[in-house]
């Protein structure tokens, strides 16, 4: 085989392989009124509008839903994070270690756990928790909190989350969206979704 044809073959293989993982994605519809288990866990929600479940996950026991795309409205479920584990998957255990949820973590410390996770995971130095208050989630005692951060795309995003620690595991649901237009447009839908969450 000549060198030019070898190069052409290599280029063809690279193009073929580059196409493959992109098409392997399959986001799923989460229909209004239909109860569904999150990440095959006992945590169940019943959406009151159609959502899209994004393919893949950002960590063990996580699932992400969106309406218009992860950049514009992002609901993340943390369906039972075990003690000793980070909220999201570590890119590098050595260079970018993430804080871990532990048996000693208190409910009131969960906002800080998310903050320190984001400082590394999203490289977001501007994260600030804006409110923390006690509330209910999954029918149990919980913490409700709000936050704001500037992401790598230079957009300021607002967030709202509810978290509860049940049988030693962390259950949390968060919503993030650009503070311009998108947060206000979907926050009521998020609250309905969080209200619908149940755990036997």
């Amino acid at each position, binding site marked *: *085989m000549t060198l030019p044809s070898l190069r052409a*073959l290599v280029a063809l293989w690279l193009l*073929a392989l580059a196409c493959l993982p*992109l098409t392997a994605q399959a986001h799923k519809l989460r229909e209004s009124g239909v109860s569904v288990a999150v990440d095959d866990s006992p945590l169940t929600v019943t959406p009151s509008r*159609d959502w899209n479940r994004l393919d893949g996950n950002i960590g063990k026991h996580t699932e992400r839903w969106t309406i218009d*795309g992860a950049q*514009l409205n992002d609901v993340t479920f943390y369906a039972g994070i075990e003690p000793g584990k980070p909220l999201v998957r570590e890119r590098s255990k050595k260079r970018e270690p993430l804080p871990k949820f532990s048996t000693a973590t208190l409910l009131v410390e969960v906002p800080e756990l998310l903050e320190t996770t984001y400082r590394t995971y999203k490289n977001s130095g501007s994260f600030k928790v804006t409110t923390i208050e006690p509330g209910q989630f999954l029918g149990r005692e919980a913490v409700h909190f709000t936050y704001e951060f500037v992401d790598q795309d230079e957009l300021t995003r607002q967030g709202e989350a509810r978290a509860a620690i049940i049988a030693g595991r962390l259950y949390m649901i968060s919503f993030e969206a650009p503070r*311009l237009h998108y947060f206000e447009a979907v926050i009521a839908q998020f609250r309905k979704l969080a209200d619908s969450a149940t755990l036997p």
Partner: protein
Amino acid sequence: MRTSIFHLLGAFAILALAAGPVCAQERSATRQGFNLPAQSGKKILLLRPTMRVGEQSTGGLFEPNADWTEQARANIGEALDASQRNLGNEIIIAPDAYGEDARALNEHMALFAAVSQAVIQYQFFVGNRLPTKKRDNKADVFDWSLGNSVASLPGADGADYALFIYNRDVYGSTGRKMLQVVGMLAGVGVSSGEHVGYAGLVDLKTGDLLWLNADAQMGGDVREKDGAAKRVRQLLEDFPGSTIAKADVVAASGAGK
């Protein structure tokens, strides 16, 4: 010979399975029912384009380059000046923004970029469409918005629509290019460089995106005058009411004579 045929068939089989999403995705879309004829009497506010130009480090990180950014900003500005008369409707240049106005403009530009990226990723990209956006496509619905806060942008009160332009050009460093070559030899795909361009027409009352031309693989080296002119032509081709495509054809045939 037999090995070559095996490789060819294998690669083509994967490409066939992949159904060619990289090559076959849409680039532009118009909101249902929107139509902007030339000389309609509507005013278009041209916002200062956002330019992000830099180098991609060996590790893939974006390192901004101030000189390139300034060059690109000047080149794109010149190319836009030259294209204005072909846009078909009255163009108003947005006033310079300072302080809080400048911050608000930057944030809206960043939102425009995020919306454009979401359109490419989740509605244009055949292999990655969100189920709800797939349904929109079937019903010919293109429904995206920046929100009605666009009405408070500097210059918005004197226009009907705003033209948002966002470019992000990242050139692979020598180290990155070498890594790409090593990757090729090892059979691992390593990208080098990124040339993203979005142009969008936004309703200044509602914030609705009326027309979008968005591509993550734009042409034209924006650091050069010719490249920037090519980029602007690419960004504004099919602009509602424009004669840019026609003007280009006329210019090209004129040059050939």
